[in-house]
């Protein structure tokens, strides 16, 4: 894993600062799309501590695009719901939408370092396209008209300037690239602090999200518990407002509270602490994720509250949104303006995530006396009045629609959902999950009970990630048609609100680009044209970009 013996290249099309889960997933995706990239990570290896542990269904799909879903699901612990208690009384039992035909559980728990390892392994599959250098950090960034010059310092202080067409900052909440670019996150943070503790303890308990408000074990506090693989519990608990954060994470202050709670819930096996950290909710974002040739993703671009698990999950969505666009721009198939849609779509997603996250935080870490009083009332009332229980629901991460994206193509079928900007729904068709078709190129889903030869382009490899695979989804037998899937139950037709001849065009990141009824090939061709310019030597990646101070 050491980078010491390998020299950094002088030039690379895409340099990714930060080898965390977002940077490594982006690298693996770019590698698959045929784009050379270099990852530089300041740390010598994967992260310490479990950190982000809840991986959403959408994130599992994205990990599937880099071939990492199988080991992820094998190692992770799936769950579908949870329970909340006020003192000793259960006041909420929730379950996330899930049915047996789903490809993935709504959520799995797995330590972040495993996600990093799986994404890193996926980059190795795409070698030589994706190259990861550990113990190497960005120390200077200079944007020029035709390139960005990034100074990287390896262990021992050796420095090298790497020229790149694009620099993607995936270097976390304290992003060096953001600082060097003189950009600051904007928004607000909450005062309420949570201590985060990982402990190792054998348990037979069901995997679910558990929350206690004012539990007898720790009166006045709020406690969250999640099981992780390897017999690890994640325990989050709120510390009092007047408690010193440095004191709060000292083992002598943490361990008795954990012991008291484990005893209360009847977990009596021997245990030991593995990792202790402290956290307060933040709602912060850059206003633009593209600054000339520098792009921002994950925590480097935005920090959202932990409640509802939108941190890593939104970062992986950033990677999924950016990878195909960056690939098309680097390969000269699309103009650099396509990257502005990355920014506008994902800034919109962040604002939605912040709105949901803020709602969850208002309940989990009430920001002032008004919210504290109302929570006291809601918890008491919830014990006998089911209509208010939804207030306690953690509002878990779900994919955000890009309803106003400039990429969306107006539909002649405008009342049907999914529409342009929606996430293309899952459906199990002839033993195949539709989402398993996404992530490699554009996909056309043609809902028709009879063959239509006019719309049969498939696997036009020369277009790279802008290729189109058309699948006919038929409710009747399809004979020898290899591009057709039989939707015996009609489930896919229903979920796509399809009629005979409906054509849903899905982007490489699984979002609907447009939908039509009985479109001509010309309409589809036009829809894809802006992603399919012929590569030439004067491609957009070398065109002058705005200097940093002009933005």
């Amino acid at each position, binding site marked *: 894993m050491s980078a010491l013996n390998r020299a950094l290249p002088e030039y690379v099309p895409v340099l990714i600062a930060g080898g965390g889960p977002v940077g490594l997933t982006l690298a693996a995706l770019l590698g698959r799309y045929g784009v050379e990239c270099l990852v530089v990570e300041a740390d010598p290896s994967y992260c310490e501590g479990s950190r982000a542990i809840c991986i959403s269904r959408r994130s599992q799909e994205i990990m599937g695009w880099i071939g990492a879903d199988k080991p992820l699901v094998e190692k992770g612990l799936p769950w579908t719901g949870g329970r909340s208690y006020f003192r000793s009384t259960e006041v909420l039992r929730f379950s996330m939408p899930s049915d047996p035909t789903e490809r993935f559980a709504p959520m799995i728990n797995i330590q972040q370092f495993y996600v990093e390892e799986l994404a890193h392994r996926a980059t190795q599959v795409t070698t030589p396209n994706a190259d990861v250098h550990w113990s190497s950090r960005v120390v200077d960034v200079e944007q020029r008209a035709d390139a960005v010059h990034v100074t990287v310092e390896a262990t021992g202080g050796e420095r090298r300037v790497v020229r790149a067409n694009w620099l993607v900052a995936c270097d976390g909440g304290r992003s060096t690239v953001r600082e060097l670019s003189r950009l600051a996150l904007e928004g607000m943070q909450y005062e309420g602090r949570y201590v985060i503790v990982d402990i190792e303890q054998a348990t037979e308990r069901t995997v679910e999200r558990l929350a206690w408000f004012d539990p007898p074990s720790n009166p006045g506090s709020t406690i969250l518990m999640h099981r992780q693989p390897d017999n690890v519990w994640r325990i989050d608990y709120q510390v009092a407002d007047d408690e010193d954060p440095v004191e709060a994470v000292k083992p002598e202050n943490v361990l008795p509270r954990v012991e008291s709670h484990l005893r209360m819930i009847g977990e009596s096996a021997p245990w030991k602490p593995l990792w202790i950290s402290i956290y307060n909710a933040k709602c912060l974002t850059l206003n633009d994720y593209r600054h000339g040739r520098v792009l921002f993703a994950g925590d480097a671009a935005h920090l959202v509250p932990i409640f509802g698990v939108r941190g890593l999950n939104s970062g992986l969505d950033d990677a999924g949104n950016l990878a195909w666009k960056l690939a098309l721009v680097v390969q000269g198939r699309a103009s650099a303006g396509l990257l502005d849609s990355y920014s506008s779509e994902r800034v919109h997603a962040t604002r939605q995530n912040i709105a949901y996250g803020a709602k969850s935080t208002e309940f989990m870490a009430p920001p002032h006396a008004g919210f504290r*009083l109302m929570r006291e009332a809601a918890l*008491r009332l919830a014990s006998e009045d089911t209509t208010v229980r939804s207030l306690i*629901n953690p509002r878990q991460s779900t994919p955000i629609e890009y309803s106003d994206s400039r990429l969306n193509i107006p539909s002649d079928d405008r009342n049907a959902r999914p529409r342009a900007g929606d996430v293309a729904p899952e459906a199990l068709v002839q033993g195949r999950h539709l989402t398993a078709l996404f992530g490699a190129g554009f996909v056309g889903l043609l809902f028709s009970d009879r063959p239509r030869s006019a719309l049969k382009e498939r696997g036009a490899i020369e277009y790279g990630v802008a290729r189109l695979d058309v699948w006919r989804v038929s409710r009747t037998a399809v004979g020898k048609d290899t591009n057709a899937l039989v939707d015996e139950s009609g489930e896919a037709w229903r979920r796509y609100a399809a009629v005979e001849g409906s054509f849903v065009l899905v982007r490489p990141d699984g979002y609907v680009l447009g939908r039509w009824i009985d479109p001509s090939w010309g309409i589809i061709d036009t829809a894809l044209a802006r992603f399919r310019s012929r590569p030439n030597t004067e491609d957009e990646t070398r065109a002058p970009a705005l200097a940093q101070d002009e933005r």
Partner: protein
Amino acid sequence: MNAEELDETYSMLSEAIGRVGPGRAPLFLATLSLALLARQPSSEDALYLVAQAERLALT
């Protein structure tokens, strides 16, 4: 009211309690309660809610 509207109402009410401050919060909540109780279909319904709130406030 759906869950989303309840959520929004909860936040707005919490903010209002914060704005009137601890000294005026009882009066604010009493005014609000009376307005809501007056909208109940019968005194029986209203008194059930009063009794429930009294019981829960003592827990």
